[in-house]
């Protein structure tokens, strides 16, 4: 007699913006770097320093807010959020509470084949904190302030999710929108996209929400799935046994795949927000807003539709090519370099991911010269390079430290199919002469027999032609 439960989830997503400099000083935002090398008196919170807003952050935030269908507040300002912790050098974070830049938006997602609208409560700008590195040996903790002051957007959704699949679809959607905008790379592993999960459960049919918990420290898409499933089961277990869920913040441990209670509602910190006196109120005028609207790119859905009509691609392929802006742009670059749309699509959907997988590389860090890849595609599809060789070239192309010319590589590795018409014709005639049985079977209507003949010819040719070419010639010779 298992009861039916419904999961209710709301998300707080933090996205690091890819501006060159930090939100309130000129320090670099580059990920990595020796600890405390991308710092200055301002982001170290030394007394006497003052924050000055990086205008790029405002521009990015307005474009993000528009992409999320939010209303942009024409008068927005920053607030100080007090909390005392070693990762925050000023002992307060400059954030937005009372007048966030954007409110009341939505995004449409598709999960498990069902379309759904997720409402956005608000989106605001803030500075990131530093990172604490805990010693493996002693009790020491080392603060690294390289990340302190990197600009963040926090997007707070309404509690509109009912499953982990919807959450993932939403995160993918935000990643798609923001990478298309070019305002963030949204890499969870590098921490440029992070999500806190607010989750409660209720018995199916109940109108009221259950008591929710907030789970923090979730660092990958897979961890989100695990964390949601773990917290859902935990709450159902508690409620099924007559207990009550405590409103609390929980800390996800991805190694043990469990969460532990961090603090209860009673111990929740009072952040004592108040308006940031060092930064004036920001007035956003119509011209600024209009130029932000005008700068919005063609997003994934529109591009998908265009790929179907412009390149005659199947809807499915167009969808897969447009998930990421980089893929979509690479596709169009391949076509402009002479690859046939169908071939380019096929390579980006099948071969490239396959090779990336063998290389244990991810698509996000892929960096390939479109002209060279197009050259490889053209040569392969026209039959001057065999497919196994082509995949080898692709592997070299995707893992090369130094760029190289595909044409040179093929030549140097003896991969070129010379298409010596005379030699090909000789082989075909020899195979026909040596296999009268298969030939007569073919002529008596068992056309499948041609496969055997092609196989024999390919063996003799040692990869110097392609099955398609041999097929064509064999068919002609048998007529």
């Amino acid at each position, binding site marked *: 007699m298992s009861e039916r439960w419904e999961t209710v989830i709301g998300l707080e997503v933090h996205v690091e913006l890819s501006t060159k400099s930090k939100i309130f000083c000129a320090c670099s935002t580059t990920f990595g770097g020796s600890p405390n090398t991308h710092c200055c*008196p301002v982001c*170290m*919170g*030394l*007394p*006497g*320093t*003052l*924050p*000055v*807003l990086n205008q790029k952050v405002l521009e990015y935030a307005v474009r993000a807010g528009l992409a999320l269908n939010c209303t942009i507040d024409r008068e927005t300002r920053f607030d*100080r959020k*007090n909390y*005392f912790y*070693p990762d925050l*050098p*000023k*002992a*307060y974070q400059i954030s937005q509470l009372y007048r966030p830049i954007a409110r009341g938006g939505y995004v449409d997602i598709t999960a498990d084949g069902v379309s759904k609208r997720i409402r956005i409560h608000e989106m605001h700008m803030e500075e990131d904190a530093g990172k604490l590195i805990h010693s493996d040996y002693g009790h020491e903790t080392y603060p690294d302030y390289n990340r302190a002051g990197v600009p963040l957007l926090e997007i707070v959704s309404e509690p509109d999710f009912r499953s982990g699949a919807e959450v993932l679809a939403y995160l993918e959607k935000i990643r798609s929108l923001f990478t298309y905008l070019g305002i963030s790379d949204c890499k969870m592993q590098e921490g440029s996209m992070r999500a806190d999960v607010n989750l409660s459960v209720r018995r199916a049919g109940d109108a009221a929400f259950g008591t929710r918990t907030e789970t923090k420290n979730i660092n990958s898409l897979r961890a989100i799935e695990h964390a949601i499933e773990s917290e859902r089961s935990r709450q159902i277990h508690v409620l099924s046994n007559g207990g009550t869920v405590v409103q609390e913040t929980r800390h996800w441990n991805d190694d043990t795949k469990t969460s532990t209670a961090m603090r209860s509602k009673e111990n929740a910190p*009072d952040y*004592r*927000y*108040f*308006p940031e*006196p*060092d*930064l*004036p109120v920001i007035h956003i005028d119509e011209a600024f807003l209009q130029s932000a609207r005008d700068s919005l790119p063609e997003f994934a859905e529109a591009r998908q539709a265009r790929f179907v009509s412009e390149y005659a691609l199947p809807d499915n392929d167009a969808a897969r090519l447009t998930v990421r802006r980089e893929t979509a742009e690479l596709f169009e670059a391949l076509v402009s370099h002479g690859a046939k749309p169908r071939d380019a699509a096929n390579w980006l959907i099948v071969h490239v991911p396959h090779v990336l997988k063998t290389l244990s590389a991810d698509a996000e860090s892929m960096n390939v010269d479109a002209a060279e890849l197009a050259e490889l595609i053209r040569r392969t599809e026209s039959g001057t390079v065999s497919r196994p060789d082509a995949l080898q070239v692709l592997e070299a192309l995707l893992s090369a430290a130094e760029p190289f010319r595909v044409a040179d590589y093929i030549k140097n590795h003896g991969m070129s199919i010379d298409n010596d018409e005379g030699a090909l014709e000789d082989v075909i005639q020899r195979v026909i002469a040596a296999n009268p049985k298969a030939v007569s079977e073919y002529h008596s209507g068992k056309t499948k027999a041609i496969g055997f003949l092609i196989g024999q010819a390919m063996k003799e040719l040692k990869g110097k032609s392609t099955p398609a070419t041999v097929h064509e010639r064999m068919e002609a010779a048998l007529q």
Partner: protein
Amino acid sequence: MGQFVTEIKSGGGIAVDDTIQVKGYETKAGSRILEGFRPLFSAEAVERLERAGYDIAGKSAVGEFGLDLLGEFAYGAETCDTLRGAAAELVAAGTVKGALCVDLNGTPRRAAALSGVDFLKPTYGTVSRYGVIPCACSGEQIGVAAKTAGGVRELLRVVAGHDPKDGTSLPAETYDYHDGKAAPGMRVGIVKELYGAASDEQKARVTACAERLRGMGVAVDEIALPLADAARTAWNLCLCAETCNNVSRYDGVKFGYRSPDYRNIDELYVNSRTEGLNFLTKFVILYGSDVLSKGRYFTCYDKALKVRRLVAEQVKALFKDYDALLCPACSETEYRPYDIKDAFMTVFAESLFTAVPNLTGIPAMVSGGVQFMADALRDSDLLNLAEALEGGNAS
């Protein structure tokens, strides 16, 4: 004289309050918690003075974070016989030509009134706050002390002007300070509420000043500023809240004073702060923390922000009819010692005379022992009034 001074290296130059950073000098802001802190950079105002060829004579002592009346509760002050209004005293004695002081709750104005020198707290946003040890960011402002209005004008022209490092800095690149109205023909209103709250000696100073002004063709009458008292409460609320937030970065870890007595990080924090901050600062922190807390934000802090707007409107309305307001800078003409346990209420009471300019950002000038206020960016009018009263002599 030595007691007034934190570190004066040469005479004849400019003294800089210890709440303003000068590269190479220890900057304690009068507090033990910043003992040994040597800033990596000089304040923008200090750099401008140096670029213009002025010598920085040294640092003048202030009370802890400039929160007390005159500097009486500076760290180490208990060993001094007198430590009051250090910068003003140095100017009055002629040891320095002028001084940069942070006006966050009227201290430099009070000191100027008691020492008989001039001090102008300019319009908020005209002098960069970059390099000021922060307390009450929304209203604190670097001002200039000198023996005469001419001396104030000379230094202010150097330090004022837009600074891209300060987000609240106003856009004008330079200020002339010669573009004010002539004193004759001005209309000046004596603020009834502030006049009425002062001692008879202070009232007599104001009355005498009004007579002299009338004698030179200035129209003087009495005006009402009913929100003066509310302005004091609102400013103290903002000041405490912002100070509480700003001093929370001092934890004994990265710079400043660290208690020798700790067994773990929490004790390091607590003991460093317990030993590093004085009673008045602790009182300010608790009060500021309370008015920002969840239950109080809307009934206290947010209300103070509303009062701030109302006071600004009331003052603006007065400046439609008056060029300047006249009032005492403090309740009495002599400093009376008090106990640090009473400091919070003593300072609160006294700030009645000084809060409006900090709260609304308007300029205020002390000259001849009395205080004038003008509308935002009318600093020149104040200099002209003071100069007329001083007989028009340049420094």
